[in-house]
């Protein structure tokens, strides 16, 4: 984890360390239990295909939670994330055999006068965007 206190205050254009996050079927089962979202499209291949999906897909909220790790690990204190929003553009298909890997990167887009930073996130699977308009507003630790 990065200790934000030891860093220079971020500037527009700064890049956050990019990460690969593997997702397996077991992750979706565990997330279903922890979140209470038991929609079978996230764990039942037969059901997912019966409603026109290519296979089991990850909970959008699991992908969203995973992507913001790039921000929370960078700033250190997840409580510094004031605002976080995404649009789910493409389902993350998680095959039984191979799972999926989400690649996430981030960039500081704005440094506001009130000390808040806006970070834009990019999340892709096999080069295709799975989250659009992914953006977090963060209070940098030295600004409070």
């Amino acid at each position, binding site marked *: 984890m990065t200790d934000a206190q030891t860093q220079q205050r971020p500037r527009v254009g700064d890049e956050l360390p990019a990460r690969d996050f593997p997702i397996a079927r077991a992750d979706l089962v*565990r997330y279903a239990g*922890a*979140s*209470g979202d038991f929609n079978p499209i996230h764990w039942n291949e037969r059901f997912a295909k019966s409603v026109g999906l290519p296979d089991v897909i990850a909970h959008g909220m699991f992908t969203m939670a995973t992507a913001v790790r790039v921000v929370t690990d960078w700033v250190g204190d997840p409580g510094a994330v004031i605002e976080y929003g*995404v649009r789910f553009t493409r389902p993350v298909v998680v095959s039984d055999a191979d799972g999926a890997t989400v690649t996430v990167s981030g960039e500081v887009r704005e440094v506001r006068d009130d000390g808040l930073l806006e970070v834009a996130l990019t999340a892709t699977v096999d080069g295709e965007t799975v989250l659009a308009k992914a953006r977090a507003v963060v209070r940098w630790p030295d600004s409070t």
Partner: protein
Amino acid sequence: MSVDQSFIGRVYPPTPPYEVGREKIREFAAAINDPNPVYRDAEAARAAGHDDVIAPPTFAIVVTMPAGHQVINDPDLGIDYSRVVHGEQRFVHHRPIQAGDLLQVVVTVENIRVAAGNDLVSTRGDVQTVDGEPVLTAYSTIVARGTAA
């Protein structure tokens, strides 16, 4: 089947209080594979300036999604839940959720529209403590694929 537009503007009564437990936060953090100590260790959370362990930025879905189901599962709305996927989600926090919070959600139907043959239903969930302290607002859009008449 088409969705009933008259639901726009409808406000639902506050949900029953949900008590945020330390172990639930730990379970959720484990489920998103996030080892951050402020989700597990009250000392680490206090060192970061919090009163107790805090919840991950997306934890609120644990309370806002069931609250939103009041709308989605209302048979009068006309949504086929088996066709539903998540379209958009945004959380705006006044402060992090922390262990011990007693949370209630007031859901408002903000918009219902049709796009590319899909029905889109947008809701806002205002999350506050039972004492009336605002904690966050969750904005959610769900998509019922190919259900628009």
